[in-house]
Structures are given as structure tokens and as C-alpha cells.
């Protein structure tokens, strides 16, 4: 039995490899983007930098979902909502940074509020003038929502399918609410046209690279955190809750506390992913709350492989890379590919690509010694 503390989580081999690969890729990209001249064949365009940044945000989001779904057994179909809330919190800060450079040149209000004839900034926008408070809000908004929602749901023992469906209803209701212009978040158009962050222009290559590195740091941090948690007794109890919630209750665990804990943490991670996503893609709007996005997210995790953490990361990156390629090369086929992926993975690859890979590796490694054993035990006619 292991009881991993933070130190073992950091020095753990998987974490080392993960962080190593992540940072060598990111730093390579950063250097090739910043130092290699634009017309060189080795130059990496800032398009690729933002694209990679976006993938890493998605990877962080997938990691967050894997924590609740893979380890907690809570299939949330509303994780997009937490992602979007974090994104909005950051978007609000970026909106405020525009200052009087908006089209109406109003120094006190964002453009859409000028347009709606609002006279003053609503109270919930007040914190967005400060970066520190914004960071707080990035975690707090999704965390609080997840806490309240989870507190209600887990206490009432809403589980399985029911929970999935009401999380879907949650994100759907939020989407409708954010679409409303009166809600004060820019309605359908959302928040866009950002200029700079902490005084650095968002259009500068160096800012982009910095954001990419920040995302990679967040992802690595979240990965280590998740490893630590899943390796600790907390993680084992969470797994136990996943596999036999009522048994765990009979052992004296307040399972709802565990679920709430992990759900809230996951929501905060999703919020951070959203906050990193927005400055890189340059827009946040209610479409991010769409239930479709949340379901797609589940597939990233399923494709990569549940309950492995790195599976989620690999899945998110692979599927989104596929999406980028497909929507460019053969747009009509993208939905077929995505749909087929959903079906194929759930039916044939319940453990995802990671599971497939480890099965293959296992077979390769173990075939010679195990082969005679199986033939002894099992029917001798069966081909090995």
C-alpha cells in the first residue's frame, strides 16, 4: 500500500515523464516561435502556439473531468459550465483592461453595456478590475457553483444517470441565462476584442508564448495534484465510493463529502482551464455552455482512457488535433468521424487508447512465459 504525499507525487516516475514531455514540447515550440526568424523553415507560427495552448487548456479540462468521472464515478455532463465560468471570470478582467479603447471610447463601461444604456458597472463586475481578485473569481465562481450544486445533489443521493442529466440541465440553464443580454455578460456575443493582460498585448508573440507556458505549468501542477490525491487514501476512498458507494457508506464514510470534495476541486480545475483558454482564443460566449461541448469533453476522456489522468490529457489533445485536421481537410466528414469515435470507443475500447496500449504491451511482454501456462490450463486446441 502506498500513501503518497506531495513529494512522492512529484518524484513519481509517471509524473516525471509527463512533465518532461510536456515541457520539452512547450519550450521547443516557444523557442522556435520566438527565436527562429519568421521565414525560416523551422519557425513555428503563432497560430501553432495558440493552437497548442488551446489543446493544453482542453487537456486540463479533460484532466478535471477524469478526476470526477474516472476516479469518482460521477459522469458530469456539465463540466463545460465550470470551464465557461472560469473563462467568463477571466474574460471580464480582459474586458476591463480594454478601458477606453472600446469602440464607444467609454472609460467606465464595456462596449456592450454602453450599447445597452447601462449607466454603471454591475456589482458582480467590480472584482474584475483587479487581476488578483480575478484569479480568485476564476476558482471561486465554478467552485462555488459546484459546491452548492454538489452539496444538494450528493446529499440527496442523486447518482448515475440522474446526476448526469441534471448536470446537463444545469449547463443548459446557464447557457440560456448567459444568452440573455440583461444578464450583463454580453449576451450572445459574449466577451471579445480583448487588448491586453497585465499590461502585455495579447497580440504579441511573447505574450502568447507566456500564456502557453502558463497553461503548461497549470496542467503540470494539476497533474501532480491529481496524482497526489488519487495516490492518497482520499483517492482510494473515492475509488471505493465509485465502485460501491453504498458499501462505503456502510463502512462509515460520508460518501457525499468525498464526492463533493472531488467535484468541487474538479470544477475549480475546469475553471482554471477556462481562464487560460479565453486570452488565447480571444473570445468567450454562451456557446461554451452548450451541452454538446460538455458531452464532447467526455469523449476526449473516454478516448484517452479513464482513471489514468494522462489518458485524459492524451485523449483531449488527440481528438482536438483530429478536429483541427478534419475540419480543414474534409469538413463534411468530421461529424461522422467524431460520432464513429464515440461509438467505437464505448463499444470496443472501454479503457480507451491508454488501455489498448497497455493491453498490447502486456501481451507482448507476457506472451512467452504465459503461453505454456494457458495451454496447460485451458483447452489445448485453442490457438494461442
Amino acid at each position, binding site marked *: 500500500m502506498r500513501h503518497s504525499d506531495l513529494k512522492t507525487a512529484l518524484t513519481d516516475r509517471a509524473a516525471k515523464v509527463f512533465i518532461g514531455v510536456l515541457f520539452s514540447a512547450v519550450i521547443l515550440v516557444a523557442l522556435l516561435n520566438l527565436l527562429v526568424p519568421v521565414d525560416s523553415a523551422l519557425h513555428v507560427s503563432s497560430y501553432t502556439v495558440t493552437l497548442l495552448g488551446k489543446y493544453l487548456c482542453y487537456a486540463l479540462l479533460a484532466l478535471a473531468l477524469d478526476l470526477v468521472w474516472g476516479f469518482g464515478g460521477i459522469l458530469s455532463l456539465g463540466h463545460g459550465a465550470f470551464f465557461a465560468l472560469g473563462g467568463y471570470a477571466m474574460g471580464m478582467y480582459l474586458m476591463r483592461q480594454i478601458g477606453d479603447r472600446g469602440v464607444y471610447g467609454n472609460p467606465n463601461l464595456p462596449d456592450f453595456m454602453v*450599447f445597452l444604456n447601462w449607466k454603471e458597472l454591475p456589482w458582480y463586475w467590480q472584482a474584475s478590475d483587479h487581476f488578483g481578485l480575478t484569479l480568485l473569481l476564476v476558482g471561486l465562481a465554478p467552485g462555488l457553483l459546484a459546491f452548492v450544486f454538489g452539496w444538494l445533489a450528493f446529499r440527496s443521493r442523486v447518482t448515475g444517470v440522474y446526476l448526469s442529466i441534471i448536470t446537463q440541465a444545469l449547463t443548459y440553464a446557464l447557457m440560456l441565462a448567459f444568452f440573455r443580454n440583461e444578464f450583463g455578460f454580453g*449576451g450572445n456575443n459574449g466577451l471579445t*476584442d480583448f487588448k491586453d493582460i497585465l499590461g502585455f498585448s495579447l497580440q504579441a508573440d511573447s505574450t502568447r508564448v507566456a500564456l502557453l507556458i502558463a497553461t503548461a505549468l497549470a496542467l503540470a501542477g494539476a497533474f501532480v495534484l491529481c496524482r497526489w490525491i488519487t495516490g492518497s487514501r482520499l483517492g482510494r476512498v473515492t475509488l471505493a465510493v465509485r465502485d460501491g458507494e453504498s458499501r462505503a457508506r456502510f463502512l462509515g464514510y460520508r460518501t457525499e463529502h468525498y464526492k463533493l470534495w472531488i467535484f468541487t476541486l474538479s470544477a475549480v480545475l475546469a475553471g482554471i482551464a477556462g481562464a487560460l483558454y479565453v486570452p488565447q482564443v480571444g473570445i468567450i460566449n454562451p456557446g461554451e455552455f452548450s451541452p454538446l461541448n460538455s458531452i464532447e469533453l467526455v469523449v476526449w476522456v473516454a478516448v484517452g482512457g479513464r482513471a489514468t489522468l494522462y489518458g485524459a490529457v492524451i485523449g483531449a489533445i488527440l481528438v482536438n488535433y483530429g478536429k483541427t485536421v478534419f475540419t480543414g481537410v474534409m469538413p463534411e466528414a468530421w461529424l461522422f468521424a467524431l460520432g464513429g469515435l464515440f461509438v467505437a470507443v464505448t463499444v470496443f475500447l472501454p479503457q480507451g487508447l491508454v488501455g489498448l496500449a497497455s493491453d498490447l504491451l502486456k501481451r507482448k511482454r507476457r506472451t512467452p512465459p504465459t503461453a505454456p501456462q494457458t495451454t496447460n490450463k485451458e483447452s489445448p486446441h485453442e490457438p494461442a
Partner: protein
Amino acid sequence: MKSKINLKRLAAAGLACGSLLYGSAALAADTIKVGVLHSLSGTMAISESTLKDTVLMMIKEQNAKGGVMGKKLEPVVVDPASDWPLFAEKARQLITQDKVDVIFGCWTSVSRKSVLPVVEELNGLLFYPVQYEGEESSKNVFYTGAAPNQQAIPAVDYLLNDLGVKRFVLAGTDYVYPRTTNKILEAYLKAKGIKEDDIMINYTPFGQSDWQSIVSRIKEFGGEGKKTAVVSTINGDANVPFYKELANQGVDASDIPVVAFSVGEQELSGIDTGPLVGHLAAWNYFESVYNDANDKFIEQWHQYIGDDKRVTNDPMEATYIGFNMWVKAVEKAKSTDTDKVAAAMIGMQTPNLTGGTAVMNKNHHLSKPVLIGEIQDDGQFAVVWQTDGLVKGDAWSDYLPGSKDLIADWTKPVMCGNYNSKTKTCGGQAAQ
């Protein structure tokens, strides 16, 4: 845990990431690349895929004529999948990876808003072919659809003057285009002496499918003795159930006419228009307009798409005008350089499809005729009114308090998209 396996897996993942770095960036100097940025999947595919086909048709025709400046045009089609952040990403891809010289694309305002910072940053060129809410003018964007003063205001004038309408229902989907249009109209109607009580404003969510209560309220509102009309900025999919409900509740065009700004031939092609005869729409183009240029365009379209039943519509005409103008501007500038083309665009004239000439103004908006048509039972519109001459598109509405002092002028010495004519300053963003 089996960390040995992890190493290999992660290395593989790293390789996959690496392959991302160098995408397709082949540069062919003997062609001019034209980016097409319209959704081919998702909710907007219904409207946007037609425009993709229109651009491809125009490119084919132009190439048959020998291309532009002796070079063939090469379309680069991408699918932003009705996903707004993806619009920005794809725009960036088109400009930096595929090195296109111009982009035709976007439909919804939010997609344009998403793309806008990208084309400005990378100094790209975007032709936007859809009627929209105005309140914008970018150095890098040409707006070939109608501004509110080219659609909404003339339509309301028609209702006021020709139909004697005294009460107005402003019904729209809850997003920025209806909001802006309705605000402009509200201000305009009040200026025309319509009382607050005689204006009813209603917003519904996207894809609203149950219109019973709203239609019933409109009926009630219209039953109070004064001639009433509905000004509809209801978007896309919500229109079919809306019109069906109107028809079923017996709201006749002669009692309460509905004038729509987002319903064209293509939207009607999904509705049984029998019960809707007489309801109105305001556009800069109708397929039913009779003249040779339009006949030719329609025939060409039918041939290209291989279906005689496919209709044409206003955004297609806007694409047609935008494309032809761009071709002329490139030839005039003898370059595809954005700044040179943009400069050449201003003042450019090409024939439109309604028998007149479209002119590109200094504010990057077109001068266009405004037509009002009544829906006919064959899904077409019959033109019942049109402006005498061309109406110049206004980037900034005169009826909104925030924008009445703003003008856009992309010629020297102003060179500004939001120039305050009172303070003589250029608003923040577009400062050069």
C-alpha cells in the same frame, strides 16, 4: 502503477504534438488564394453552406475568364463548425498557414466579432456578406450586407407611410442584431410620433419553437383598433414555427402584417407559404427581381449547384457584389496586398443584381437599393415598394445615443472606423 509503459505512451504523445508544429504551409506563387470561412456543420450550416457554394461558383467563373491578373484563384475552404472561437482559429489558420489573400466568410455577428481581432492583427481582408446591426467599421473588413438604415428604417417608413401602421410589435431573437435594430427602430418610431404604449418589444431565445402565447399576445395587441404591424428580427430556425403559428391563429397579412429582416427565399423554402401570402420582408435583393443580370446569376447558380429548385437570396447577392468588387480592386491595385486592395476598394462600383450599381463607401459599407417584398405562395417575394435611389450604408446609427456622433471614414486624413465628429478624435481601438 506501471510507469515503464507511461514513458513510451507519453513519448508517443509528444511525437504527435510535434507533428502539429509544421502544418501545411506550402506556398504557391502562381495562384491567388481565397479563403472561405463559412460553417459547413452545426447550426449555422443551413445558411452558411450556400454562401460557400456561391463563393466557389464565383471563383470557378472567374477562373474560366482567366483568373485575376493572369493568376488562377485557388479556394481554401475550412469549416468553423458554427463554433465561434473556432472562427478566430480558422481565420488565423487561413491567413498565417494557408496565406490566403482574402477571406469571404462569417454569418452571425458573434462569428464576425470573433474573427475581427484576428484579421486586424494579421492585416487580413474579410468580406462579410450578411445584413447586420452596424456599430462597427474595421479597416480590414468590407460589409456588403445591409446596415440597419438599409433595411429596417426604410421598411418602417413603408409601414408608416404606405400601410398607415400606428402600432408596432418589435419581435426578435435575443441577440445583438435584433437588440440593436429594435433600439434603433424604437428611437426612430418615437421620433416619428409613435407613443411608447404603441410599441411592444418581445425577445425569444434561439430556436424558440412554441409561439402560441406570443402570437396570441400579438393578436391581442393588434386588436385594439389601431393598425398594427410586426417587425420581426426573429432568427433562422425559429421562423418556421413562428409563421406556422401566425397562420394557424389566423393572423392575416391584411390585419397584422409581419415585416421580417432575416427571412429570405432560403428560409421560406422550408415553409409552406400558402397561408403567409402578404407578409413582408425588406432586403436589398429578391430572387424575383426581373433583369438580365439576375436571370443570368440564377441560371448560373442552378447550373453550378445542379438543382433548379435552389433559390437565391440577399446574402448571395452581397457575396456576388463583394467578390466582383474585390476582383476589380485587385486588378486596379495590381496587387493583392491588403492595404492596396483596401484603398482601391473605396469608391469601387460594380453592377448589383437588381439592375443598379453598388458603390463601396468610405466607411466600408455599400450603397444599395432597399426593396420590400410580399411573400407569395410559391415561396418567392413580390416587390411592392422600393427606394428611388441607392441608400448609403451607415456604420454608426444616427438614432443611438452612443453612436450618433460617430462616423467611419477609411480615407485620409481621417482613416478611422469610429471617428467622433464632435470631438474630432478617433476612438481608442482604431487609433493609427
